[in-house]
């Protein structure tokens, strides 16, 4: 058995850590923390930790509550970004045990790692790009361009029932393979086209841990008619000055009637954030 939540998620004193920033000025941030808590910037040298005093983890099985907490977390990190530039954003529910003294000690002991991360993020943001295609249109294109599929279609039409069944299975498998190849090639092309503008690109697994529990109203019956599918979702760490150049490339993709592109950002670099204190254990 693991510890019970009551025993393990509360403690005497803690500091919820939103992000680390570059600043030498201690101050309060004019933004509400989670559940309206106060947000302070504690500094050592030119490093700041954006924290909120807490005495327990934020833990709930109510996804609406969790969603509200996550939005609050994001608002604080956004406010810190506006004031201090791109931060090192920490994952939800990262809490340093103790009070301000422990935060100061942590800043001191991890100054090199934090400074390196902040330097690598300076002037940059995370951009998220989702490329989708209309599978019905792409399927028609693939069929029209592929001689083997055209030949199989002809053989199916001429074949008897048993042979026709086997040929149809072969046709379906071949079409599926061609679509997978097209998807891979398209994703690769997108990566290559934006690579010059990016410091780092990661392909994201977009399986939602939260939205499937909070967005139940999107599964209307109309969706059964849709053939739009995700081709790839990328997280791109790029200089803010390059966001328009990336947008120009994406516009070219979006001009294809079979494709659509969602381009969001700049966000704090959550997907590119490092592990701090890896050598501590």
């Amino acid at each position, binding site marked *: 058995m693991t510890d019970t939540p009551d025993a393990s998620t509360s403690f005497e004193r803690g500091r919820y850590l939103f992000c680390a920033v570059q600043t030498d000025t201690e101050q309060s941030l004019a933004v509400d923390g989670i559940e309206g808590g106060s947000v302070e910037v504690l500094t050592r040298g030119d490093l700041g930790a954006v924290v909120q005093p807490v005495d327990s983890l934020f833990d709930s099985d109510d996804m609406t509550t969790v969603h509200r907490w996550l939005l609050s977390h994001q608002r604080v990190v956004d406010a810190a970004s506006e004031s201090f530039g791109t931060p090192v954003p920490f994952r939800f529910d990262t809490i340093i*045990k103790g009070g301000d003294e422990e935060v100061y000690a942590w800043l001191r002991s991890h100054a090199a790692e934090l400074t390196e991360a902040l330097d690598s993020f300076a002037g940059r943001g995370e951009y998220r790009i989702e490329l989708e295609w209309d599978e019905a249109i792409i399927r028609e294109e693939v069929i029209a361009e592929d001689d083997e599929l055209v030949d199989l279609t002809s053989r199916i039409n001429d074949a008897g029932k048993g042979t026709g069944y086997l040929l149809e299975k072969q046709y379906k498998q071949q079409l599926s393979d061609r679509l997978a190849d097209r998807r891979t090639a398209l994703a690769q092309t997108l990566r290559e086209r934006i690579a010059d503008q990016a410091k780092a690109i990661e392909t994201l697994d977009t399986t939602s841990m939260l939205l499937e529990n909070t967005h139940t109203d999107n599964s209307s019956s109309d969706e059964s008619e849709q053939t739009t599918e995700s081709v790839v979702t990328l997280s791109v760490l790029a200089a803010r000055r390059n966001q328009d150049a990336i947008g120009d490339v*994406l516009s070219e993709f979006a001009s294809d009637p079979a494709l659509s592109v969602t381009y969001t950002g700049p966000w704090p670099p959550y997907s590119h954030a490092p592990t701090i204190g890896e050598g501590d254990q």
Partner: protein
Amino acid sequence: MKPSRDEHAIVDLVDVLLREGALLQADVVVTVADIPLIGLNLRAALAGMATMTEYGILMLCRIARLGRLNRVIFVESEETEYVGIRIPSPHPRMCCES
């Protein structure tokens, strides 16, 4: 094309906060069963399985597969050892097979 930061985009982003963001590995971090991650209730709810609360492990495996804990080391013993994270595991094999 310009990047957007509208309400819909932010709603999509918050899911990221559960599995992305800098990880802090240090003795100073509050942990649940030595896991410096989200709380037990939340983990269990996300997993959607009541047994998660009892074992508190499988969700971590899922997070590991999805997120930054992809350097998980599975050990068939009384404890399941993660890189930098050690949690008591009554059923380590379950974890490996999940």
